């Protein structure tokens, strides 16, 4: 067939191309809208249900016994903060170091085994990781504890953070590393101060997604940290957390508790949202100044 630019074939072809273009553009717009709407709906509904109990005492007081009106989730908020922080303290450096190893040093069988394990581990249901920590920590200690909860959250974080770090470091072109080596710098310094430094803000964003993810974990904490109606700061004692407290209150038959569960859900969403926002502001790609 001749490709006469004004022939019927070309004109038809052009029309079809236009139609396909419009079709796929509309599909994209619709998909995007659905995502945004879903977020809006979740946020809106939780806000609507949670707002009545979302007040100052909610943040400052402990749960009241059944029948008494009021009370708050101070214990759960403190518990979540402790466990997410300690879990992050363990999991974030561990994950980043694993990612650096995979991207910068890992070659051959061992590295691919590590990579495969990280992939597997990140797809293991978190409840199983909770059971694992139950066996290795809760049973020997003979009690549920904040420490076990933190360790569980750390284990959930590590594979995600490791893979994110690896992928981001692999985006750094190799000639950047060579430029560092050519300045007469040892490889570890090039890795740490040039390669990792250059991707730092992107890695932190990834890390915060992982942290936000684990701050909503419920099931594995039931096996490890359990719950606690009292405010406590010790790592070797059972401790409350927002998701577990929400779970407990949501399945209870008391209206007041149900309302508080919604407020807790709202607090959790705000918490995750704030983590994302703050890291974005603090770790915006910036350049260190002369002074």
């Amino acid at each position, binding site marked *: 067939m001749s490709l006469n630019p004004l022939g019927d074939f070309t004109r038809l072809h052009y029309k079809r191309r236009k139609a396909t273009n419009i079709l796929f553009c509309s599909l994209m717009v619709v998909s995007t809208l659905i995502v945004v709407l879903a977020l809006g709906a979740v946020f809106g509904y939780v806000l609507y249900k949670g707002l009545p109990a979302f007040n100052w005492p909610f943040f400052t007081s402990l749960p009241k016994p059944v029948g008494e009106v009021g009370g708050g989730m101070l214990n759960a908020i403190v518990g979540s903060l402790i466990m997410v922080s300690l879990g992050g303290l363990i999991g974030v450096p561990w994950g980043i170091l694993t990612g650096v190893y995979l991207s910068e040093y890992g070659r051959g069988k061992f590295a691919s085994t590590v990579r495969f394990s990280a992939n597997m581990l990140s797809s293991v249901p978190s409840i199983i990781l909770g059971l694992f920590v139950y066996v290795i920590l809760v049973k020997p200690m003979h009690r549920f504890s904040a420490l076990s909860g933190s360790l569980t959250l750390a284990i959930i974080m590590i594979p995600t953070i490791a893979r994110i770090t690896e992928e981001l470091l692999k985006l750094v*072109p190799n*000639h*950047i590393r060579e430029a560092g080596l*050519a300045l*007469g710098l040892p490889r570890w310094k090039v890795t740490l101060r*040039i390669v990792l430094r250059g*991707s730092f*803000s992107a890695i932190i964003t990834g890390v915060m997604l992982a942290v936000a993810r684990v701050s909503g974990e419920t099931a594995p904490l039931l096996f490890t940290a359990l719950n606690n109606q009292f405010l406590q700061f010790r790592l070797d004692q059972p401790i409350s957390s927002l998701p577990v407290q929400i779970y407990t209150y949501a399945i209870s038959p008391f209206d007041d508790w149900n309302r508080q569960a919604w407020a807790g859900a709202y607090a959790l969403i705000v918490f995750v949202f704030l983590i994302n926002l703050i890291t974005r502001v603090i770790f915006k790609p910036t*350049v260190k100044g*002369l002074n």
Partner: protein
Amino acid sequence: MSILKVNNLNAWFGEHRALNNIKLSFDSNKVTALIGPSGCGKSTFIRCLNRLHEETPGASASGQVILQGENIYVAGVDPVRIRRKVGMVFQKPNPFPALSVFDNVVAGLRLAGIGRKSILRDVAEKSLKLAALWDEVKDKLNQPGTSLSGGQQQRLCIARALAVEPPVLLMDEPTSALDPISTAKIEELVLSLKKEITIIIVTHNMQQAARVSDKTAFFLLGELIEFGDTSQIFTVPKEKKTEEYITGKFG
């Protein structure tokens, strides 16, 4: 006087031999151009001179490379120490990401543990002036290095390499990603820098080799075919292959 002498240098990528018994010597404060078709081993060769070749997985090299009287290919020589004496500029401008212009220039010193602000500032100014970039960036030292134009980025990389004061500077096709004006600036720079430093430049551009170099080496298929004064190589080459390459019969 020769500052760098190469004897029987061989290089491999795995089983593949990329360089075959190269013997060459470089005079100090001269510019030597390495020419030859793609894949002839020019880049591999200069990457052997600062022991960067061996950083490629599976790559290895053997032979003698004598830098200021010291063979850098004997056991126990730390490649990190050698690379401080043999700087390198790459094909693509590669300022370090997320570092400012200033931090890029002093990266080699700062990461080697020199933290005194006054020293770093002096070195930065001196290196940027040597690289003919100072006037253009003196007011934007705090901006990201990657915000400069391509030609400026390449001069920034040259300044960065000069900041650690290496006696030898390797340039691997430093202008192949640049426009003609930036290229001309880099060429001027090469000519002015040879007062301070010995330069070895790989280029695909034969006019460039003719313009900037004192000596020229022609490589083909991992062998050194001919080495001599640039004027001689480009006017009366001794080898037939050299003549054919220079006149554009192949390559």
